């Protein structure tokens, strides 16, 4: 889908610069609150990396509105489908962003929304399959400030 490709192109081109300038962003920071939120979602299943694609710009213009899209490789049949997709942040005041519940009626495992980011940090997308397995993708996002902020 165009939106995902565009997001990936932006992430790919800006991602290199971000990693070079800010290596700290790639390191995971799992607070107790984030760990509890992840455990609640995974029900204890081990988290594997892969199958999930979190499309978000590596550098965003404004932390107030960050478009995100998550897609998961899955045939979405009754036998094999994604049950839910969760988005977490590492450094927001509250780690959960949203949890989306899908099923075979969805036809495709892809959701889009817009989130808030308090500061530059890692964003984590997780998908839970009907067999209980959990997959993730983590992306480092840098947030630029808008100039000329609200004064009154």
């Amino acid at each position, binding site marked *: 889908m165009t939106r995902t490709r565009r997001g990936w192109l932006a992430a790919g081109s800006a991602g290199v610069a971000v990693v070079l300038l800010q290596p700290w962003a790639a390191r995971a920071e799992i607070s107790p609150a984030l760990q509890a939120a992840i455990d609640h979602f995974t029900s204890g299943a081990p988290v594997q990396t892969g199958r999930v694609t979190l499309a978000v710009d590596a550098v965003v213009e404004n932390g107030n509105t960050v*478009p995100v899209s998550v897609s998961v490789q899955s045939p979405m049949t009754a036998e094999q489908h994604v049950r839910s997709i969760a988005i977490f942040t590492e450094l927001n005041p509250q780690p959960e962003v949203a949890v989306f519940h899908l099923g075979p009626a969805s036809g495709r495992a892809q959701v889009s929304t817009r989130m808030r980011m308090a500061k530059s940090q890692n964003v984590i997308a997780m998908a839970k399959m009907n067999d209980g397995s959990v997959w993730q993708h983590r992306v480092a996002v840098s947030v630029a400030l808008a100039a*000329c902020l609200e004064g009154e």
Partner: protein
Amino acid sequence: MKLPLATLLLAFIVAAASAAQAEPRRSGFDDMSPSTQALQREDTQNPAMLWVLDGEQRFNADCARCHSAQSLGAAAARHPAWDAAAAKPLTLAGRINQCRVRHVKAPALAPESEGLLALEAFVALQSRGRPIAPDPAPALRPFVAQGERLFKQRIGQLDFSCAQCHDDNAGRRLAGAKIPQAHPTGYPIYRLEWQGLGSLQRRLRNCMSGVRAEPYAYGSDEFTMIELYLKQRAAGMAVESPAVRP
């Protein structure tokens, strides 16, 4: 073979020169990231359309008795316009309120209120795609001139004029954000920083706070004159209302 090559080269140089002359002006849209541009491009994704929905309902309740939406296609592109009765220029919001008081017999809507912004967004949408076509009334000229003076006047603790950023340094970066040329092509805008819809005057107040100047009041003559000048400066550029901006 030399003559055709020289002709081709000359044609290329002329084409390049005229392309550069054709449109050096950039809308704020062009300076945004592709993700933010995507928010504006599709009506099903543009948060400003929620206010347009409200504006349409209000329009149908109050304004449709005299106006069809289509008949107002030139309004936003033309305003601020000369109002002979008041002997001064009126912004689009000012015109909407004047109509309400005189013809709908309803009270004027407060500046920057949800209702006024919704109506302004709905009316401005009718001009989307049209070129900004300022009212040519000669009576406006001294007001445009004053607007230009205000644009070029240094203000605030930081002692900056609008022109210093938006004429002299447009395209450069300020605190990580690209400085736009400041053409009011898309108002009222959904500004990501506000997480809501706002008018040009709200944005200008932000600018003034940014240079640590006391902002002019909503509805002030200064804002009307600055908008007049900005619209002259942007004449011919396409209306994008309601736009999304960071």
